[in-house]
């Protein structure tokens, strides 16, 4: 079940009615409802791995208590290491084992050895990349003394399996989320309205832009050798926008659903295409993943390598970005994607500009200065170029895609350009709105202060009508596959 389906509306309606029923259920009963709803949601997506989710929740709940009880002894370190190794082990087994077998067999064949190993065709459990990270950080935070182990198993299960975020994030850290589960959530009208507006904003960008351009992009990618140079360039640029509006759209919807249920969920995007450097882009893109990796990969490595000065930091950032790349899946394309981004950081670390957070100073018309705009375009082009690797099924196809871009047909009309006029118009409006309201969590925050009731409802209804008109069948979210 996906968040942008009618089935979800029905599912959420039932939960909402019980969760805020006039009988005023206590906080622990609300948590029971959340756990039941989350497991139903998860099982509807892929029931085969619900026991894995439950089993790992039980185990990490126990490990958290064990670490706290044995703090100050060697056992605390052993339990923490076990939690980290087990979490990474689960990820390696389910996500990367086939890849290792395949790569190792190719390597042996490359040196002339006759191997007939076959992969195990392991199925990746839904949401494993998200819930494993939550479980690891829970135990590590207890060991670092930054979190008390919880004795409330139901609350802990609600945190791990929380249905709005289980399949695609954002990845909430336990320190901010668990305390929210220890008190009753009463219906907060202002927060719920804000949540609904955020859902609408997310759904609009997903349906009107991401889904609107998805068909054209898929068509071009389905026949890279046969596509014209201009179509390849067009598809590469569009994919950057598709990935953003698809994933940010999902994140807005998940955060919005969380708000209606009384939760504050971590942000995932902060208008990344207005970044004027790659470092700034990564501070604004998939923030819940990058901040998790910063905390548990980059920081420890950076501390370890600190005596090497800037070289140590370069090494830490390259490793961190390789992990970011490989987190997406077992494919050399993601490895090269991560390496490419890691290497992009080197000039700014070497110059020292890496640490400086430059604030945008718009001109008197409220627009970016030509210099800043040029940098934004530069960052966008670098991102779009690197996403060719992200989208490609293998390195060879990515190379063919890039080669094809520079063919004489570069000057022809790209495939789908005329049909996409509507989506391109929505895209222009979308980025103009984002720019104007870029200081807000989402553009509809505080709408009631500027628009009267009639104007607001006209906006909501207008968007709903457009969403219905443009929804061409259910489109899954891209990040669900990770």
């Amino acid at each position, binding site marked *: 079940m996906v968040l942008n389906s009618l089935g979800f509306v029905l599912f959420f309606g039932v939960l909402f009615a019980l969760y805020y029923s006039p009988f005023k259920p206590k906080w622990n009963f609300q948590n029971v409802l959340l756990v039941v709803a989350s497991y139903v949601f998860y099982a509807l997506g892929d029931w085969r791995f619900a026991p894995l989710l439950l089993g790992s929740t039980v185990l990490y709940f126990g490990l958290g208590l064990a670490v706290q009880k044995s703090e100050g002894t060697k056992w605390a370190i052993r339990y923490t290491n076990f939690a980290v190794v087990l979490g990474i082990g689960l990820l390696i087994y389910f996500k990367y084992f086939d890849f290792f077998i395949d790569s190792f067999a190719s390597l042996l064949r490359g040196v002339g050895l006759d191997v007939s190993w076959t992969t195990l065709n392991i199925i990746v459990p839904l949401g494993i990349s998200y819930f494993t990270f939550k479980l690891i950080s829970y135990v590590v935070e207890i060991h670092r003394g930054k979190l008390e182990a919880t004795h409330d198993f139901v609350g802990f299960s609600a945190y791990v399996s929380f249905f709005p975020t289980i399949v695609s994030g954002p990845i909430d850290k336990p320190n901010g989320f668990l305390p929210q589960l220890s008190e009753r959530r009463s219906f907060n009208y202002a927060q719920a309205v804000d949540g609904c507006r955020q859902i609408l904003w997310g759904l609009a960008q997903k349906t009107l832009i991401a889904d609107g351009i998805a068909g054209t992009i898929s068509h071009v990618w389905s026949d890279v050798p046969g596509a014209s140079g201009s179509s390849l360039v067009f598809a590469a640029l569009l994919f950057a926008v598709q990935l953003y509006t698809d994933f940010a759209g999902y994140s807005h919807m998940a955060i919005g659903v969380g708000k209606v249920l009384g939760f504050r969920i971590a942000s995932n995007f902060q208008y990344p295409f207005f970044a004027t450097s790659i470092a700034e882009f990564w501070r604004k893109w998939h923030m819940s993943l990058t901040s998790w990796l910063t905390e548990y990969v*980059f*920081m*420890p490595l950076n*501390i370890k390598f600190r005596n090497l000065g800037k070289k140590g930091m370069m090494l830490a950032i390259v490793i961190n970005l390789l992990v970011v790349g490989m987190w997406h899946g077992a494919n050399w394309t993601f490895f090269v994607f991560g390496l490419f981004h890691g290497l992009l950081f080197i000039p700014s670390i070497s110059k020292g500009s*890496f640490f400086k957070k430059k604030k945008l100073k718009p001109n008197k018309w409220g627009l970016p200065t030509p210099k800043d705009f040029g940098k934004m375009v530069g960052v966008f082009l670098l991102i779009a170029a690197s996403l060719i690797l992200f989208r490609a099924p293998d390195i060879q196809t990515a190379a063919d895609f890039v080669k094809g871009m520079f063919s004489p047909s570069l000057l022809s009309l790209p495939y789908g350009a005329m049909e996409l006029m509507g989506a391109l118009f929505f895209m222009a409006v979308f980025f103009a709105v984002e720019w104007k309201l870029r200081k807000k969590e989402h553009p509809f925050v505080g709408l009631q202060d500027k628009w009267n009731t009639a104007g607001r409802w006209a906006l909501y209804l207008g968007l709903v009508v457009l969403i219905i008109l443009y929804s061409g069948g259910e489109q899954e979210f891209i990040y669900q596959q990770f």
Partner: protein
Amino acid sequence: MNQTEILSQITDVFREILDEDALVLEASTTAQDVEDWDSLTHIVLVVGIEERFKIKFGSKEILAWKNVGEMCASVSEKL
């Protein structure tokens, strides 16, 4: 060296590295309270403090600090 002197020297290091002359630190100050203090500048600040006091922190110690006060306490233990 007492806690006030340690805090004052740490404040100097922060001001130099973050290029913020008016910055005031207290024991309860956290990274959330200082605009440019993030995971990237954090390590530069740590190295700056190590050099200033000629000490070396352990990795676990650095990762466990919750505020400037705990940073000062770590320095104080090593002097």
